[in-house]
């Protein structure tokens, strides 16, 4: 049965500097939550506090409602996979996986059976007698995953387990992690600085900055409706345009873009309009934009397979705007060349306005 993991107002400082501040998070049983953020934002500290490797200054960590602050790491029953390869070099693969069962004094026969099953799950049964130095990085991390899962922990903690791997192995292994997590229904906290990882495998993701959780939501929510400018900038690519609050709404370079002013914003105050490249449409001049368009010139078009990224310099702002367009089909508009005159239209419903 999967467990819940709850952070309640956790605060942790190092030498007077707050690593995490008033950190709250409630994970449902069987849920995979990613903590995403830049280096030094406190995501690993949050994970280490849950594991028991760091003691919080204040707050509570609840596992199935029981506060585990003060419980030593080896009594928390949490499996963990680390960023660096953490297999015990003196033990072969099967002994590494059996380690957690051995210390729990599981019978030999049971150990053998469960180690076999765990290795089967990560497709490494054939390497059971190898030593860690005889394995590739991806294989080592899969053994580490099997070792963390074999004793059926209450919670699985993953501390950037993919960051030391090359791109192809990383994608394979993250799918593997998600498959196993769903199969076992394991409550999992996954720390990463790679937004693609967080977006692709999480039930929910939390974006952290300066020790605080800026936003917690499903990957779609976080991407489509970022709660703060930091989240908007950190997750995905986004355009930022200087704008002004007017009585009629927001204007960019004097052009009304069909977006209402945020509550409490004073007329005449400067704001920033943010919009994802895929929410920006680019037309040839006079293609029915109802006057809400910003004129500009195509600077370049970067081909990226199924899509391409069009870079446009706006006439009135001297700002570059990125627009993503699906690759040309028989019915779509023809592509653009550098130097083409175009009009840029933002999608009002998907624009984020920040101070």
């Amino acid at each position, binding site marked *: 049965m999967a467990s819940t993991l709850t952070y309640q107002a956790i605060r942790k400082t190092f030498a007077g500097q707050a690593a995490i501040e008033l950190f709250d998070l409630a994970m449902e049983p069987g849920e995979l939550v990613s903590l995403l953020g830049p280096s030094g934002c406190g995501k690993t500290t949050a994970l280490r506090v849950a594991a028991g490797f760091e003691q919080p200054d204040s707050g509570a960590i609840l596992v199935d409602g029981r506060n585990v602050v003060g419980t*030593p790491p080896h009594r928390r029953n949490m499996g963990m996979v680390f960023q660096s390869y953490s*297999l015990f070099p*003196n033990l072969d693969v099967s002994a590494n996986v059996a380690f957690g069962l051995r210390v729990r004094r599981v019978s030999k026969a049971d150990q053998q059976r469960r180690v076999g099953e765990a290795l089967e799950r990560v*497709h*490494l049964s054939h390497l059971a007698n190898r030593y860690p130095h005889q394995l590739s990085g991806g*294989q080592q991390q899969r053994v580490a995953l099997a070792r963390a899962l074999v004793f059926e922990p209450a919670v699985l903690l993953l501390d950037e387990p993919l960051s030391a791997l090359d791109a192809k192995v990383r994608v394979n292994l993250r799918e*593997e992690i998600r498959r196993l997590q769903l199969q076992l229904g394991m409550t999992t906290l996954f720390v990463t600085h790679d937004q693609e990882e967080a977006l692709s495998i999480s039930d929910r993701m939390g974006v952290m900055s300066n020790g605080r959780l800026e936003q917690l939501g499903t990957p779609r929510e976080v991407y489509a409706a970022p709660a703060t400018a930091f989240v908007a900038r950190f997750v995905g690519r986004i355009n930022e345009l200087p704008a002004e609050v007017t009585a009629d709404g927001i204007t960019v370079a004097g052009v009304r873009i069909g977006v209402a002013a945020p509550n409490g914003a004073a007329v005449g105050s400067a704001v920033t309009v943010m919009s994802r490249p895929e929410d920006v449409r680019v037309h040839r001049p006079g293609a029915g934009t109802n006057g809400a368009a910003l004129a500009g010139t195509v600077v370049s078009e970067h081909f990226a397979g199924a899509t391409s990224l069009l870079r446009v310099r706006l006439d009135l702002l001297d700002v570059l705007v990125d627009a993503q367009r699906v690759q040309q089909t028989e019915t779509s508009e023809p592509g653009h060349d550098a130097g083409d005159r175009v009009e840029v239209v933002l999608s009002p419903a998907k624009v984020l306005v920040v101070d």
Partner: protein
Amino acid sequence: MTAEAIEPEAVVAPEPRPAGKLAGTVLSWVFVLAVMTYFLFPLLAMARFAFQRVPTVLLGWSTLGDKWTLDSLTRAFDDPQFGEALWLSIRLALGAMILTLALMVPTAMWVHLRIPKARGLVETLTVVPYVVPPIALVVGVIGAYRDTAPWFFTSRYSLIPFYTVLAMPFTYRAIDAGLRAIDLRTLVDASRSCGAGWFTTTFRVLVPNLRVSLLTSAFLTATVVLGEFTMAALLGRTTLQTFTQQFTQREPQGAFALGLLTLVVTTGLLALVTFLTRKRGAAAIPAVV
């Protein structure tokens, strides 16, 4: 998903050695031979004095092969005090090895895990025995503890703490090097997250992976103990070295033979350490846990 294959390492043909490199190699060998000669000649002289039954005034090139014998060593072995002195030295060496490991391993681990910034300071502290002469150490300790703990100085094992301190510059470094070679924090965290307490983590994870450095540390302690004279003499203990010194008065040849034997044994221990550390390292040595 299939397992990733380990890429075989490419075989690279050795490049021809340039003339400059060859000259460097030759020079290196000349230097090594010069150093060996510098050390070996006195040892050869020592060996001839100890093991040739030829009057000293006649020891020259012409008598190099004459009358070699182990009589002097046999006489030393036959001395009733020899066995006792050797056995005491062995016990002191074992005691110092155990005390060294018991103190240094947790200390070095603690420094690495909890106060890594203090590593430099601790390293500096461990070299203090280099700068404090053994005589000052013994006299200082005697002065400080004579009245409060007289039992300490009457025990034949009172030399063990002194030897542990004396060997510290070598032993701490050996253990420290071992800890630097492994990802200590991750291994400890991994073990703890699997449910192991400190005892299990230390003895099932760390010690097997530090085996080479622990052996090095132990052997270095043994070599220090087997070669130490000043402290044993000051505390009036008959160890191998003090026995040798006393034996010199009666049997100079036997004393030299013993000195040479001690040198061979300690050199053998160091060679063993070198051999062990030249293996692929602790990480590659499988262990039954």
